[in-house]
């Protein structure tokens, strides 16, 4: 089967400033359906730039990008928007939920812009609800973002990314704003989705977080310097179990001392 993501010698040069910045310098990459990739690298190594290219938010200066067989590098603004809407799901570091808008309405958002579809508002609602269920937030459907914890907000964002059944889920530092336990919870959600066959590409600079993925890519100065499969992969469920035990132990030992 052809890879979902296929990039060949892709370059990105920012020439808006005084000196042109060559942020991505010839990356070639195949990502197949069902993969779970972590993109790692130091700050400024071009991770976000590459993610923006993968996410069809930006066009490469040079090179070919085929998503699900479509040559994305040739599309115009509106066609890119449609690709983002129908083939991609985004999770951002800062959650980027609409303020003063309920979780459910946030999840509905991509379906409002879905073209070529005649989905009734009842079905939109139902599907948004279903996606909130997947991330375990069905009970919080009517909450506003400011009534939710960081981890819960990120799960709403994941539900929003899922709602149009994307080919690839893209996440730029999805755990960057979360504490370690919540990060593991979010990785658990990703692992569950990946088991259901969803392809995921995420950026992280945390090594332990990358260990929950199946494949790790290391980027340095705009080129991939390492591409390896993860050995001894961490399973979020187990790690959470261990964390719980540790917490319980802490309480047990703390109790008599008090």
């Amino acid at each position, binding site marked *: 089967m052809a890879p979902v993501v296929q990039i060949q010698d892709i370059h990105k040069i920012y020439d808006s400033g005084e000196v042109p910045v060559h942020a991505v310098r010839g990356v070639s990459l195949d990502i197949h359906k069902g993969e779970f990739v972590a993109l790692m690298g130091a700050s400024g190594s071009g991770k976000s730039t590459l993610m923006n290219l993968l996410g069809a938010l930006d066009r490469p200066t040079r090179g070919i990008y085929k998503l699900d067989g479509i040559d994305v590098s040739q599309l115009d603004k509106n066609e890119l928007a449609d690709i983002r809407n129908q083939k991609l799901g985004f999770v951002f570091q800062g959650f980027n939920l609409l303020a003063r808008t309920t979780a459910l309405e946030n999840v509905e958002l991509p379906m409002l*812009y879905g073209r070529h579809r005649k989905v009734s508002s009842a079905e939109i609602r139902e599907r948004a609800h279903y996606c909130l269920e997947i991330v375990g937030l069905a009970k919080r459907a009517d909450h506003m973002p400011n009534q939710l914890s960081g981890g819960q907000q990120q799960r709403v964002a994941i539900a929003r990314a899922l709602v149009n059944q994307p080919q690839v889920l893209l996440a730029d530092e999805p755990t960057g704003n979360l504490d370690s336990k919540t990060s593991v919870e979010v990785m658990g959600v990703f692992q569950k989705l990946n088991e259901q066959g969803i392809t995921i590409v995420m950026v992280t600079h945390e090594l332990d977080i990358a260990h929950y993925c199946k494949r790790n890519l290391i980027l340095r100065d705009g080129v991939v310097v390492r591409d390896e499969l993860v050995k001894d992969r961490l399973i979020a469920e187990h790690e959470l179990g261990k964390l719980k035990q540790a917490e319980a132990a802490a309480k047990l030992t703390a109790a008599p001392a008090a």
Partner: protein
Amino acid sequence: MRFFTTFLVALRALRRNTMRSILTALGIIIGIGAVITTVSMGNGAKARVEAQVASLGQNIITVYPGSFSSGGMRGGFGSSTTLTAEDADAIMAEVADIEGVSPEVRDRNQVLANGLNWNTSINGESPDYPQIKNWRIVSGSMFTEQDVKSLAKVAIIGKTVADQLFPNEDPIGQTLRIRNLPFRILGVLDVKGYSLFGSDQDDVVIIPYTSHMRRVSRRTNISSILIEASSSEKLDVVKQRVEDLLAQRRKGREPDFTVRTQEELAQAATETSKTMTLLLGGIAFVSLVVGGIGVMNIMLVSVTERTREIGIRLAIGAHGKDVLLQFLIEAILLSLLGGVLGILCGIGASELASYYFGLPTLVSTTSVIIAVAVSTVIGIFFGFYPARKAAQLDPIDALRYE
């Protein structure tokens, strides 16, 4: 995206900022309210003028001394006051289809009665006057042709004069003094109210015009001639005949008189109130434009403030067109909201004005429809620039915006 969903999105966005939405709409509310109020006051004033014109009597033609250009307002006295009582007699004698004629002599003077004194209009008229003016005498009677011939010192008085000089008694048969001459009061006129030009028509003493000319004002010419045609169809014919007759009596001299029908006078009066309405309406319109600029200002602030929201929408697949439409609809909804509230305020203000100041007002459907149309256009006009600005944002830049 379907139009309806965009509409819902815009509505949600406005609801999220209820207070600001209302404040933004306030400019439009005041603008539209002011337009509605001024227009309805103008309409009311016009209606009142028309009612007053009707109450003045029908089929009336007035001859003024002096030659006026069109426009119809009377000049001052004494310019070329060559209109004489004989002119009036000739009209009565020679022009057909006439119900009545009254040579008028006007003056202001101090009147004394009952130990009280009062400055009022002293008008010399003929006995036809009450009939011509459709003005009833509520008690007593009008002086007669005989009184005119004998230069009788008799008078009828208006309600205001009666109230001022005879607060507690019946004025009929009493005496009032004009220039120290005693005039016997024969009758009191019905209440007439204010004239087209805002003067109290009841503040008047009417005496035979001959007595006025010989005894009071000592003049040989008259102020005007009042003529009643027998029917409205005859009005123009009679006017023409009067003009011809007077021209003939002047034997080729420059015409030194002007003949005006009631209708022409009314037109002049409504013309004034129309100008007022236009002027006030213009001011109100300016405030409407200011309100529109307010909408634009807030929408611009809103676009900047919601850059992230726009970035999110664009990132998940909104086209520039969708964002444009959303912000445009927001602007239009704001203006329309302002328009509707403005109409309600305008109607309320008109009611208040007519209640407290006794101003007649008439809210017209046309002005309401125009107000709604104008506020929609304002929404589109002033909303377009901010909306386009939002639509042209780049999703990555917008998402990175702090």
